[in-house]
């Protein structure tokens, strides 16, 4: 059979090609076209003139970043602290939870617990924040209890000093259960004969955890850490916007809220676009770098070489 020409193949696959058109068009318009919009990072963008006619300003908008404008630095610091907390606390929590769930003997109980713990993932941030207000707010469940027992009250919701603990707690409540799903699947794939053999050799359960279970989860952990790194400068945007009023910008401003507050609300378009652009580029570089590192350690990473 002779090789089909390109045109023959297009004709043969015309239905498949047509099928892809609407999806590709939407991606091009809403994921690729905005890249062009980033040019306003190099312009003095004025909405009433339009992108094309706004004057070029070179790298002037980036000066805020380079010169270390205090508001920008505050947002950057808060972002990095929240990211650090997420890697140290939010990331390992589901692994521990998955190990706990996996050790449950009864399959039915296990499934019941799973369906309860997955649920908060599907609630919006507005709902989660509202729920936390009901529980921890000044008139919430906790403070009412404390007041009834003459134990004083604790201010959590509107206390800038408690903000980091609050957002971390909320992320844990919402997503720790859901994040176990991948770890549970990885755990179920570990060869049970490994455990049998190690038991014959007299390994304790802690040694089994260290020498069999954790190595079995290693490549998944690496993969998820890389993906998390790509989002290192993205921390709970909706979550924070919703609670910013109560605690003020000093404690709660992160890069995304900085871009929103200064760009869309305050009209400082160019600078905000510059910050957003730098943020995106750094995120991409972090993913690529981490992936390279993973390859060096013999892991597969997000994509292959």
């Amino acid at each position, binding site marked *: 059979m002779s090789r089909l020409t390109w045109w023959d*193949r297009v004709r043969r696959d015309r239905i498949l090609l047509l099928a892809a058109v609407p999806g590709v068009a939407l991606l091009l318009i*809403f994921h690729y076209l905005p*890249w062009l919009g980033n040019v306003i990072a190099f312009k003095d963008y004025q909405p009433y003139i339009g*992108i094309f006619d706004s004057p070029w300003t070179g790298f002037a908008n980036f000066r805020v970043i380079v010169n270390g404008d205090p508001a920008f630095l505050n947002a950057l610091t808060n972002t990095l602290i929240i990211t650090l907390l997420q890697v140290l606390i939010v990331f390992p929590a589901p692994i521990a939870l998955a190990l706990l769930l996996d050790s449950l003997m009864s399959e039915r109980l296990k499934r019941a617990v799973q369906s*309860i713990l997955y649920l908060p993932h599907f609630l919006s941030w507005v709902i989660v924040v509202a729920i936390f207000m009901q529980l921890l707010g000044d008139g919430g469940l906790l403070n009412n209890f404390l007041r009834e027992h003459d134990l004083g009250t604790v201010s959590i919701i509107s206390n800038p000093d408690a903000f980091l603990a609050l957002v971390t707690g909320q992320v844990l409540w919402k997503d720790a259960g859901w994040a176990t799903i991948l770890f549970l699947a990885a755990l179920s794939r570990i060869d049970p004969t490994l455990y*049998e053999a190690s038991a014959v050799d007299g390994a304790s359960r802690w040694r089994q955890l260290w020498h069999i279970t954790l190595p079995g989860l290693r490549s998944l952990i690496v993969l998820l850490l890389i993906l998390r790194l790509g989002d290192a400068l993205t921390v709970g945007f909706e979550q924070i916007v*919703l609670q910013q009023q109560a605690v003020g910008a000093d404690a709660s401003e992160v890069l995304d809220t900085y871009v929103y507050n200064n760009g869309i609300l305050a009209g400082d378009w160019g600078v905000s676009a510059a910050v957003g652009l730098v943020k995106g580029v750094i995120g991409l570089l972090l993913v690529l770098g981490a992936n390279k590192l993973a390859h060096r350690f013999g892991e597969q990473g997000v994509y292959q070489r």
Partner: protein
Amino acid sequence: MSSRTTIAGVTVASKPVRALKGVILAACCAAVIVPFVGIVSTSLSTREQITRDGGFVLLPDQVSFAAYQAILSGGVVTRATLVSLFITIAGTTLSMATTILLAYGLSRPRSVAHRPVLMIVLFALLFTPGIIPSYLVVKNLGLLDTYWALILPVAVNAFNVIILRAFFMELPRELIESARIDGAGDVAILFRIILPLSKAVLAVIGLFYAVAYWNAFFSALLYLNDTAKWPLQLVLRTYVINQTQIGVDQLGAAGVALPPQEAIQMAILVLSIVPILVVYPFVQRHFTKGVLIGAVKG
């Protein structure tokens, strides 16, 4: 049963360790369930009880549906609920159609466009456009203050496309080839063979899309200046998180004694959770399958 704790020869955890595990898991479950119970209870409570219990009721002595009557009698909340329902249904329908078609188009590696189109999808996954440029695109397309602004930018989720494509590619090739020999075209293969075999994964992806549309808060805040068009999440923020008092004017229930604010707030909250609770049990058992395909193959 393959659970390794039952395998002979393996030491089972000691009693105190097992008790501790049980306590931790029970506490986790309670942390999820108790707030729900409290919200539903408060929404059903009378003014006397809410005052007595300090604003948040764990178990009502007396059940009253007044708060639900008030929010569902045609005011701001009713309208916002309808808006959210419309966006969710229209958006999910459009998303499923485009996602299925795109994944199908990509599921045959021999096809001409396979590589470039796959690249377009994968890169969309890696680079997410910033807030400002996305806003400018929506604005320049004239979509501000239209419901399209909440639907079109998120209509195709690249990750869902990848999940679905991986699933399509795992279906036995013999089935598709024998159908082709029997004279079935690409369209018939998609509708008669592939889709019926993919119900579980389609249900999961459908739920992901529906939840995303139903929960859309930030895009609505960003793109809808017209408060008359607000979906439920923005109403929630205004009346529950920002604690703006909700009055007879907003509720559309003229001449009725207003139920307590706390009950109304919690009733709005319940209203926004109910649709998720209704669908969740049906899709929940397919989660593992649906999520894993994407994670392992993507």
